[in-house]
């Protein structure tokens, strides 16, 4: 049986409608907006090229998120190889108050999967199922991951208060 083919129009609609959200998450992962944009472009190009493999078993958007997140992680690995510090790059651009933020401390300390889940949940506004598709994990794992992240924030807030 033939594969689903979400025509260019679908991907283009998603791109045009959600580009800022993709850019924000990619920027958070990679470290700066220019590299984040590159990751979004590469992720969508990958989705465009691989669209035959999308079988319609989940939302198109979640499937594209996976390619964009993977593109951003690859870009971050390349940055890491150049000994750059991606997370610090965009956080340093926030105003001075942010530097003292418990949330900033918290985000920086999160394990990678928790950090990605946080970005997808709060920067992309994805539901748990879409996050699960994007990260290729079970929905229950997303729930547990975010719950752990919230617990870590509570601890981080107590430490900052002290």
């Amino acid at each position: 049986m033939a594969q689903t083919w979400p025509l260019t129009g679908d991907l283009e609609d998603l791109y045009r409608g959600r580009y800022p959200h993709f850019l924000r998450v990619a920027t958070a992962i990679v470290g700066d907006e220019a590299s984040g944009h590159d990751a979004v472009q590469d992720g969508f190009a990958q989705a465009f090229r691989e669209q035959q493999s999308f079988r319609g078993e989940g939302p198109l958007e979640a499937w594209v998120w996976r390619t964009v997140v993977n593109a951003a992680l690859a870009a971050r690995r390349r940055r890491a190889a150049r000994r750059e510090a991606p997370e610090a790059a965009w956080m340093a651009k926030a105003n001075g108050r942010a530097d003292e933020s418990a949330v900033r401390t918290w985000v920086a300390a999160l394990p990678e999967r928790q950090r990605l889940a946080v970005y997808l949940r709060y920067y992309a506004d994805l539901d748990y199922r879409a996050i699960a598709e994007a990260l290729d994990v079970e929905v229950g794992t997303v729930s547990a991951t975010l719950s752990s992240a919230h617990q870590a924030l509570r601890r981080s807030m107590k430490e900052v208060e002290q």
Partner: protein
Amino acid sequence: MNDVEPLIVSELERLLPLPDGRRADWSDVLRRGDFMRARRRWRPVLVTAVIVAALVGVGVAIAAGFGAFNGISAAQRPQTPADKIDPKLLAEINAAFEVRGGPGRLIPRSARLVRRLSNARIYAVATKDGQLCVLAARLLNNNGKFDAAGMGCGSPLTQSEPSTAATFARDESSPAISWGITLDSVTAVSFMAGGHEVTVPVENNVWAYEGAAPTHGTLTAHFKDGSTETIG
């Protein structure tokens, strides 16, 4: 929201506000996709038949229509205004073919509207290299404008490949649309969807099913003489 989520939302927003869309550049995405494609071989999206070479040579001048429509009576008729596909959509598909290295360009005058669904139109279209393409254009709020489309192309139908099949699912909130064009001799097709076997009748060479997306990679065509052919 739990006790910490409002703080997370507000602080993350302050750390990295939502950027504007000024950098967005879809043509750059297509260029990058084209570059990737150049390194990998494109594969047809439809089940392929084995006699394409013979039919390509015949071309598109077969009496009542196009070689790609052989055995499809519903498409063997003169084109009417209702058959014409939105030129913008055609241009978009042809551009996608060029970028992806798909089949030859679609022949606009070959387009035949073969089925009207409540929220979609299904067309058969021939390409310049003799392939059969089946296009499902979905209507947005039934206002006559397409909001999305799915398409598959492959070799003309044969007795061993008597039906096309494709599925389009935009998102979770709307059911998938599966469709195909068959030879005149096919009366129904069946496949697995939503955990059970679904049998869909063929009317005027077209079957269409709105519901769970087919889950198995096979489709069984049922012929008038009672025989079946499983594709996949």
